[in-house]
């Protein structure tokens, strides 16, 4: 071997191939370092993501269960229907205060009848373990069906936030000592109720469907209005942005002359994508609410503002998808005598569709998480009424949105809202994951059609 190699320049460098030269070793080391940096960066970002998800899950999963007290209750006609003629209009005069009394009395009576040790809780405090949400719901139930009066019904009432917190480990006897809303005796009673099977932790549907509730009854607060508001906004944003965005992109890519004016438009579209979102909120406030007089806090205004923000994203994604269609396909279509329109609608758009879809869904997903502009147009309001159906003008009704709900819960004082806002984040993340998976699936499906 050495005979052959000796004359060549490679041979002159010396050394066997098994043993790299110093230069090769340096090169290797550099390559190894580069790989190490890359892996390090990935590990760092993955662990941050993992830490974030773990924190949110740990804080938020408990929001999906809710301490609930279930007991049989005699709907006392003496309280809810004094005239005794089951006239709904007459019965409606009885306010929730009356029903609160009814519930408290029924609860106390059942504890006595079932022989549960009340652990020295005074009778007045027994009823306070039931959420203030209960009387209102009981009232609605009775008014909807007056035949219940005088009957024994099985009622499920949320326990107060403190009792709920005790079962979730947030409230302890030590904190209860210092708390004016709960006593250690009530916690003892809660243990007894759990043992008796009266106090349970079922899945909290109310969290997903119910409207927001005030600071006084965190146990009753739900995401219903926020989910409806976000849903309305996403649908409206898609309706507003996709046709406009795709039309803009097609025009700019396929038809527009290349001159200074179109250059200006292009630059401004990119600039628009970089404008801070709060600025869009001010714009929306000024134009849609103050100038056009659209209702505050409505999903329509929210959708319009978010559409302004999403449009540049969709235009940029669509344009790059259109630009990625190979020029050979354009030539083929033009060469066979297709018109510009036919070229666009028969060839370019079908090929660009996966890219357009992905861009649109990712744009919508980031719009779903947008908070700042919604604060300015009043979607941070405390809304307890569901918006009407989409075809009954529901988009004009006040609503909130998921990220705004997270924000408003996170800023409330009761610690029960910590789990609520984390729970809302989980719901928001689930929606985002669903949208991203949809983007991937759509992309796959369309790409398979060559």
């Amino acid at each position: 071997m050495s005979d052959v190699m000796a004359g060549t320049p490679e041979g002159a460098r010396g050394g066997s191939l098994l043993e790299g030269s110093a230069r090769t070793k340096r090169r290797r080391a550099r390559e190894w370092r580069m790989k190490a940096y890359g892996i390090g960066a990935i590990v760092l970002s993955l662990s941050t993501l993992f830490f974030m998800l773990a924190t949110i899950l740990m804080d938020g999963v408990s929001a999906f269960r809710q301490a609930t007290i279930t007991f049989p209750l005699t709907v006392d006609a003496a309280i809810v229907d004094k005239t005794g003629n089951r006239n709904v209009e007459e019965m409606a005069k009885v306010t929730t205060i009356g029903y609160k009394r009814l519930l408290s009395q029924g609860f106390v009576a059942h504890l006595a009848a079932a022989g549960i040790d009340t652990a020295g809780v005074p009778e007045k405090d027994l009823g306070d373990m039931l959420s203030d949400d209960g009387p209102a719901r009981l009232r609605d139930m009775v008014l909807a069906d007056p035949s219940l009066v005088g009957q024994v019904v099985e009622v499920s009432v949320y326990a107060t936030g403190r009792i709920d917190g005790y079962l979730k480990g947030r409230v302890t006897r030590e904190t209860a000592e210092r708390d004016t809303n709960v006593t250690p005796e009530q916690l003892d009673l809660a243990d007894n109720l759990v043992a008796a099977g009266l106090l349970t932790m079922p899945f909290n549907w109310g969290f997903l469907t119910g409207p927001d509730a005030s600071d006084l009854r965190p146990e009753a607060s739900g995401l219903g209005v926020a989910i409806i508001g976000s849903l309305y906004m996403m649908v409206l944003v898609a309706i507003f942005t996709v046709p406009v965005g795709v039309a803009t992109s097609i025009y700019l890519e396929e038809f527009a002359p290349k001159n200074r004016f179109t250059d200006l438009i292009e630059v401004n579209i990119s600039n628009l994508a970089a404008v801070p979102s709060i600025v869009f909120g001010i714009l929306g406030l000024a134009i849609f609410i103050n100038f056009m007089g659209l209702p505050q806090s409505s999903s329509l205004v929210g959708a319009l503002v978010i559409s302004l923000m999403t449009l540049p994203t969709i235009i940029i994604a669509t344009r790059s998808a259109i630009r990625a269609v190979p020029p050979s396909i354009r030539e083929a279509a033009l060469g066979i005598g297709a018109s510009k329109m036919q070229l666009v609608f028969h060839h370019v758009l079908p090929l660009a569709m996966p890219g357009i879809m992905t861009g649109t869904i990712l744009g919508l997903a980031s719009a779903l998480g947008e908070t700042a502009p919604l604060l300015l147009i009043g979607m941070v309001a405390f809304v307890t009424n569901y918006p009407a159906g989409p075809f009954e003008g529901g988009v004009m009704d006040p609503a909130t949105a998921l990220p705004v709900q997270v924000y408003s819960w996170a800023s409330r004082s009761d610690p029960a809202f910590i789990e609520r806002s984390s729970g809302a984040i989980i719901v928001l993340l689930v929606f985002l994951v669903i949208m991203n998976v949809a983007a991937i699936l759509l992309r796959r499906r369309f790409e398979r059609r060559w």
Partner: protein
Amino acid sequence: MNDMRLVERDVSNRQAKIEARGVQVHYGEKHALKDVDVAILDRTVTAFIGPSGCGKSTFLRCLNRMNDTVASAKVSGNITLDGQDIYDPRIDPVQLRAKVGMVFQKPNPFPKSIYDNVAYGPKIHGLARTKAELDEIVETSLKKAALWNEVKDRLSAPGTGLSGGQQQRLCIARAVATAPEVLLMDEPCSALDPIATAQVEELIDELRTHFSVVIVTHSMQQAARVSQKTAFFHLGSLVEYGETGQIFTTPQDPRTEAYITGRIG
């Protein structure tokens, strides 16, 4: 035909299909084509040869106004198809391209089925009234492109799934389907292996019986094999145009001789 140079022995009875006079092309500042005069004969294969960047593809793309799609391209001069000025503002380039078909360097079938690839042109130009007529156009076009036997059992398979040579023949079938009067081919074999090249060349000879074929090629052997007329381009000018046999054996211009003997190019 009114140019004495064009009267050739074997194609002397052919009429001029396309006549170009004083054609100039500018790409922005670049003067890509200088004063080209040429007459493309009916039912004849005309080869354009010349070194890279000599303007032969540019000139080819003038013949069906594909240069319109290049924003910076400016074409002047006069090109007629059957005596009609194709750069007349009243002319619809879409109609023109149905008459003057084109096959490109790289096979570029649409990402659709084999059937849809061929049927696309007839569909957009309304050449078939019924499904049966369309089926027939697809079949005859694929037969003219010598592809029918290979694909008749899988017309709904994607055109992009064929081999390179088959794809190019599919593109030829697609161009043939609109019943063109002239077929322009821009280096149709440069992406093909020798066997596929031979098939396409045979096909070109076959197609000549139906319409004019203009082929741009880098291969002088190919020009010699398939064409009756040859035009040699150099640095944007048409240097010499004549019968293929004469160009390759007794070139009149020293630059043509230099190119075909391999001294420039």
